[in-house]
């Protein structure tokens, strides 16, 4: 996915499953908290309880260049580089 002015990277190994990214994403779009309505799904491996975020929706617009999910992730499992040349979402 291409969007404006930066690159969003997901580091699945760093994810601790706190769901803050989901809450932040839904909040930034609707001013309400709702993990189910966020553009992120958290893949949950029931063998280990390991989670990993995935951006599932084509509606993700990188929050106009200031992704709420990356800002909310305390474990740096979603990061954002604002000045990435072409802008992409990995």
């Amino acid at each position, binding site marked *: 996915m291409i969007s404006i002015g930066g690159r969003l990277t997901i580091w699945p190994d760093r994810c*601790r*499953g*706190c*769901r*803050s990214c989901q*809450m*932040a994403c*839904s*909040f930034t779009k*609707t*001013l*309400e*908290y*709702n*993990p*189910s*309505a966020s553009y992120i799904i*958290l*893949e*949950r491996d*029931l063998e*280990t*309880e*390991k989670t990993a975020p995935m951006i599932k929706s084509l509606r993700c617009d990188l929050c106009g260049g200031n992704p709420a999910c990356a800002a*909310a992730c*305390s*474990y740096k499992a979603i990061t954002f580089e604002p000045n990435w040349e072409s802008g992409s979402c990995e």
Partner: protein
Amino acid sequence: MTRPIDRTWFVDLTRSQVHVEERTYDEVADVLGGSGFGWRIVANRLPSGIDPFSPENMIVLNPGTLVGTRVMGASKLTAITKFPTVASADHRYYVGSCTSGGRYFAIGMRQAGCDRLVIQGKASEPVILAIRDGGLSIEPAGDLWGKGIDEVSRTLIEQEGQDAGVLVIGTAGEKLVRSALTIIDRTNSLGRGGLGAVFGSKNVKAVVAHGTGSIRVADPIGYNQIADELCERAMTWPRREHWIKLGLAAGWSTFKHTQNPGMWEKESWDKLYGEEKRLESLRAVIACASCPLNCRLRWVLPGGEFDGEQGLGSPYSKSATSGQLLGIEDDRKMIHLVTEANSYTGIDFYTTTRLIDFVTRMAERGRIPAEQDGITLARDYPTYQRLYTMTANREGLGDILADGWYRVQEELGLDPSEYWYAGVCKGVDFIYDARPSRFHPLMMTFLTRPRPHHGGSHTRTNSRGKTLEEIRDQAAHWGLSDEVMDRIFLETDYSGKFNVGRYTAYMEDLMRVKNAIGLCTIYTYQALIFADDMARLYSAAVGEQINARELIRRGERVSNLAKMINVRDGFSRADDQPPDVWFRPMEAPEGRIEMEDYYQTKTLHREDLAHMLDDYYEERGWDKTSGHPTPEKLAALGLSI
């Protein structure tokens, strides 16, 4: 500004009936909604004098008012019930609350539009309760009854979807083992002292919670700004790096003092169960919802008899104290037993271990016959393994252990006050020992709370060596008057540099606040969120401006409600007594350890504790002789019960 609505779902299992009561927030605000209002429902609708296993008993599950909102640490669920632990020689039972975090369950309840679930009655067959967008359904448990916690949890998550929250009881809860607890979302335990057994008595194997609705706050922008500001505080906390690497395993530096049974040399305990050892089996640290600190653990045992065995939860403190008490040097053997308790039986590991320690040691000393029903008591690992299983299954001697300390006294003639570690009060053994811990306010809450467990009361005082300035600074955020602060920080010859009794009253009220709003206790333990922050959050969430003083006042109202419910069932100051063992020096390898005040200026005696209790009741405006709230106090708080 849209103010939230408070919705309580009621299920009567006997009649298979469900109904919902909706209230405006103003109707629940005087007790902060959440578990505060749960306590009011219990006060108004739970008959006094009932048996905890009777259908009349209630379980009230309360997600906190802030749960699901991205405020750090707001992940908690509080359950209220009459616990089946036999709490006195004349068989009284306390009504108490317990609290736990999680990632899915409490949020799932709120997303489904259930701010509180009240469970009453008894199902005719084993059932699962499912909280979904469309309402509550009662579904047959089928062959899940009889299965272990983790298998049931996984099955239900697979059926319901990966975001489903689960609260599950184990085989011990089904068999009404009086200490049995529940496990939430596979990683968090809730309700030692028998919440799991109350579920079992109602034929409820599990509750599933899965909703898709939104969680709204009254002032979204203001609220979210406070959430960002607080998170920034946690991110710059100097110990964060260490904490996120180890989770709860990081607690060893405090824990090795507070939970030391004093049988082994400190160095050998460190080597066998300390931080380095923990790292050998630690595989991952898992966060509760919206927590930037994380503490839940996944471990895999390396080598030995249980090589490759995986567990979830927090095994290290439990295994370290129990290993020392039982004399088991191989940490993997103890962690294996914790794993079985968390993932299969749901017995409370603290209580079961101490009872096993008590009876096996007493058999060794010749105080009871080694030959007991179904087992020959010895001080070795195979015997312990067998006793954990027998307790969970209520087989032979295990049937007695499953009923707790008073039944052991009645059947085996062993007085619980003789037990050597930490002590027993109201039928519950304490997790910390007041002697190596030094007498800090959390020890006081074990006496004064209706349910003798901390319940999430932590403040800075629960670690050793905090300066008076640090303790005072934290309390300064409680919004108390100068007069009250002066009383708390007045040096006395019985409590030392601060007045533990008076401090405890407000610390407990703050605990009621945290439980009502759903905030994890780690944030007050590490002084990362203060009472005035909670007031700002609460105000923005519900659309009513209140300050810290008013917030604590509402917490006080909940404390009084909880106390009055127990007064109705015959509890009084006579039940709030410190255990004898606190006054017997611990004979540790490094020397005698006596119970001292927080700053170790003197040894504490029974009169000192009595003085502290006097101060506690006085600060609360309760009668010092009976320990009961006075009619004037209840009137001042606007409570009638």
